[in-house]
């Protein structure tokens, strides 16, 4: 499924401490249009819970999460 996802914007958040991945994505999501996909790349395992919680709070949607080689790729669709 992940191969089919086209990210309209990719944010490299690898190595950033808490809560910076969420802070930066909160801003970054406003730089894509509603319906478009933002890909957040992080190494923070907390992202696996932070991003779904953030998405529920902010009204956006986690489309897919992929973990490969220690990197967590989270695909977020802007909904609002």
């Amino acid at each position, binding site marked *: 499924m992940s191969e089919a996802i086209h990210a309209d914007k990719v944010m490299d958040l690898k190595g950033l401490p*808490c*809560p910076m991945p*969420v802070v930066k994505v909160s801003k970054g999501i406003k730089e894509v249009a509603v319906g478009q996909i933002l890909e957040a790349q992080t190494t923070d*395992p907390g*992202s696996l819970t932070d991003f779904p*919680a953030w998405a529920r709070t*902010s009204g956006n949607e986690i489309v897919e999460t992929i973990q490969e080689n220690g990197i967590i790729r989270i695909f977020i669709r802007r909904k609002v």
Partner: protein
Amino acid sequence: MDQQMREDLLKLFQTKLNRAMVYYLETCTRCGVCTTACHVYQSMPQARYIAAYRAEIVRRIYKKHFKGQGKLWPSYGEAKELTEAALQELYDAAYSCTGCRRCMVYCPFGIDTQMLMSIAKLLLVGAHAEPEILTLLADTSIEKGRSLEFFKEGFLQGVKNLEQKVVEKWKLEAEGKTVIPVDVEGAELLYVALAGAHSIIPAAAVFNAAGENWTLSFFEAVNFGAFVGDPTRTKLILDRIVNEALRLKVKEVCICECGTAYRVMKQLSGTQPFKVSSVTEVHARYLREGRIRVSKKAFEGQVVTYHDPCQIARNGGVLEEPRFILQHLTDDFREMAPDPRYNYCCGGGGGLVALGEDTLDFRMKSAKVKAEQVQKTGATVLATACENCHTQLSDLNRHYGLGLNVQFLTSMVADALVVS
């Protein structure tokens, strides 16, 4: 601002008027002792950064709306109406104050500027004029508490991914023992970490080395409700951890290297059947009891200094423990001057670090005095025990070219572990 909004905000103001707050609001003699106590003023000498000036912004609104004199003769005592312009002044005062309480130590009356700024922050929350990201982060934490089942799998997967790195630091003697235990009822100690791996891996290695009967919390320790000054959100975030500790029947809740989390848990969780400790206190205890051993080899030839996180040291009372730990890690520890009780804030507290790049320029300029304080020690390693401080000190290190190795104290302990 319409009348209804003003009335609503004044009701919020009223909720803050306990005896201590009224004392702070009515006591300042403008002696000016606090002026140079503030690291912001020392770095950027402007009147608006004087603690008494910040307090006065809140105090004038108090005089106007809560004191007879201010209602009848507002110009006497410079009472001031709560308006949109006043809200902007409150924002500028509250979000240029890190809540370090250094000014309080110097004030002959012990006026607590952080408490006064909590009024400013609450009014901003009431007017929806607070930094939006802090409220979003607080709501994200609350959501995790409300929907734990939804997030559990992701959390457990994330924790599982860290186990190998923990074992690389400390190999468990007993086969089949869980490297990072989660949700263990009857564990002695509940460790509340931050979301990042750096907050879990070294701490887990030390707990395992000490043979601790521990369990990792589902929740992150940081309390963004406290940063934004919202008591309701602060309590909701805190309650997640309190309820987890009660459910698991632990005897001790150990808070990771996060100053705000430690102070909120220690001072706001009320009377509970568990004690609250910082991870620094726990590590010092392990060393004292001989449960862990560390070597000085890891930091041989290095000059080490320690930055006291304001919420853990000055405001939390954990002063001796980090020094006790560092005695075991280095032969060349150099204390900063002034001493820990009068230590300068890193410049990143009060939610400023969490506001990221928006506050970076201010944080770097306003903490110049901190950079100089660190530089004077001649240290090559700067240890600290707070995530906020670590982020800010790392930013200062880059900005001022200090050439330091900024370290978490827990990581230093984990890297220096040796077999008994």
